[in-house]
């Protein structure tokens, strides 16, 4: 634990590279609550590590759990472990048939897996807001769920390009209370102080791909089950650039954009290739599209379609198009006569 804190502080003071996958490479987890859980009967028998990383080991399907006690309270954890489908219908996390004792033990282990936050120290530093925000981002362990640069998981939208797609104002609204903007969201409320929200938003708003790490893309694809066809590379582009945060997981749409005409929901893109040729599509992505407001007297819809095309090269645009095209009514190689 001490080792972890020392390392944490080192990382903090140098204010460098953003959090690694739940800790530095050579981190010593001996004697930590994370290791205690790792060696417990719960993990050895029920293999939570098939999907979750604890310490440095485990799968990539779910969030990294090392800091879960920092962001979730016992009551939430009890509800989640008792029946994940109740909290988030359709989740990949299965229900485990625990005895009440096992349930409590699991909740205790999870609640204990926390790291000390350094919010006050960070906010007291005399550094630019964005730099402060980066330190907070690291301290809160946002990459437990979010992909960022070459770190993190795909449980939540990739934040590498967040600065292009969302306004700083909206980011503040979101970070102050995610559930107020989107009831039922899986993003926890970190109860970040107002200045911290400012700092985080300032940091996020500067994220326009400078942490994009092309050299990591291959490892990344294998981690997330993606092969190397145009379509699969396109899916990666779709995820990396965060198209799915507005156009929905696998482009199905149905994401809310308050006061957007006609029905306050952003379009899915599964038929976009019927509507746009490859050129039209690339052209469209080169400019910002602001949606029409439903009611002019109300605040404008917070989300617009960003000019992502400017940040993509030709092959990325082509792959993206191929990905969306794969949803158009499929021609299988074979058919029934």
């Amino acid at each position, binding site marked *: 634990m001490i080792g972890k804190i020392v390392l944490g502080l080192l990382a903090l003071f140098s204010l460098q590279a953003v959090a690694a996958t739940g800790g530095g490479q050579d981190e010593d987890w001996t004697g930590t609550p994370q290791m205690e859980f790792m060696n417990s009967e719960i993990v050895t*028998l*029920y293999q939570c590590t098939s999907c979750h990383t604890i310490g440095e080991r485990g799968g990539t*399907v779910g969030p990294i759990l090392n800091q879960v006690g920092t962001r979730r309270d016992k009551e939430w954890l009890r509800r989640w472990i008792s029946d994940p489908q109740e909290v988030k219908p359709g989740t*990949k996390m299965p229900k485990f*048939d625990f005895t009440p004792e096992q349930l409590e033990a699991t909740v205790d282990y999870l609640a204990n897996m926390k790291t000390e936050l350094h919010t006050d120290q960070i906010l007291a530093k005399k550094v630019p807001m964005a730099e402060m925000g980066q330190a907070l981002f690291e301290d809160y362990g946002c990459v437990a769920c979010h992909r960022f640069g070459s770190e993190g998981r795909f449980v939540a939208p990739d934040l590498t390009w967040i600065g292009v797609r969302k306004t700083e104002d909206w980011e503040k609204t979101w970070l102050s209370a995610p559930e107020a903007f989107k009831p039922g969201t899986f993003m926890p409320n970190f109860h970040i102080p107002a200045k911290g929200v400012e700092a985080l938003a300032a940091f996020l708003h500067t994220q326009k791909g400078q942490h994009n790490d092309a050299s990591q893309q291959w490892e990344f694809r294998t981690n997330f089950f993606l092969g190397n066809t145009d379509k699969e590379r396109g899916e990666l582009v779709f995820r990396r650039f965060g198209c799915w945060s507005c156009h929905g997981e696998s482009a199905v749409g149905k994401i809310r954009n308050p006061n957007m005409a006609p029905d306050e929901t952003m379009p899915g893109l599964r038929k976009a290739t019927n509507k746009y040729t490859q050129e039209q599509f690339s052209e469209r992505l080169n400019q910002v599209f602001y949606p029409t407001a439903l009611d002019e007297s109300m605040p404008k819809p917070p989300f617009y379609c960003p000019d992502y095309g400017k940040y993509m090269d030709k092959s990325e645009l082509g792959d993206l198009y191929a990905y969306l095209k794969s949803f158009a009514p499929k021609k*299988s190689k074979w058919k*029934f*006569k």
Partner: protein
Amino acid sequence: MTKYRTVLTSAALTLVVLIAWSTNGQIAATPVRSILSNDGSISGAVRFPDDYPEREKITTTKDQAVCGAFQYSESFVVSEENHGLKNVVVTVEGAEGKVKAGQAAAILDQNKCQYTPHVQAVPVGTKLEILNNDGLLHNVHAYFDGLDPKNTVFNKAQPKFLKKITQTLDKAGMYFFKCDVHDHMSAYIAVMDHPYYAVTDETGRFAISNLPAGTYKVKAWHEVLGSLEKTVIVESGKAADANFDILPN
């Protein structure tokens, strides 16, 4: 500390297209039933031409000790002998008949990170026994009517020591099973509210018996090919033919 990765590469992993299963069976042609007896039948085969697809290989790099280094895709299992296609669900639409109550349990076995059988059809109300002898965690994520998170029926962990989970299939329609730990694992169970159905065998053949004479729509459904219906006239005491040919698109 040694760092191990539990990662599954699956370059060849193609997301199975779930074709909506029409749950409402009644199609235009109402069967004209013979007052005599249920002694007609329908049989046939689902076949590829000479040039047929080979089984795809899916690379696995997670839990290889149990799952093996690769798996064969089960979407096209074609007989070398007659090019028949396995795992096609054939149903007689619009036939009336009671499902047999109190049948034996159906089995869905998780064996070396693969579900067996890959496709089966059972009467509504059947108890399903889900087995796990792999000695590792699988999660049994069941969907009804298509792979969409909102269609989740249940999602249960089956840890390495839990050899059996029992679940009742109480809705007629298509259930789809998937493991979120091992992305390539998938299975289908067609749950039927009448007794006139079959699943094609290794040679693509099927037979449906005890049908009253009449004119029926016979539907073939396959996980990749979708479905096709044919009109078939069944005469009392006779076997009617229903063959489904597959062609290049």
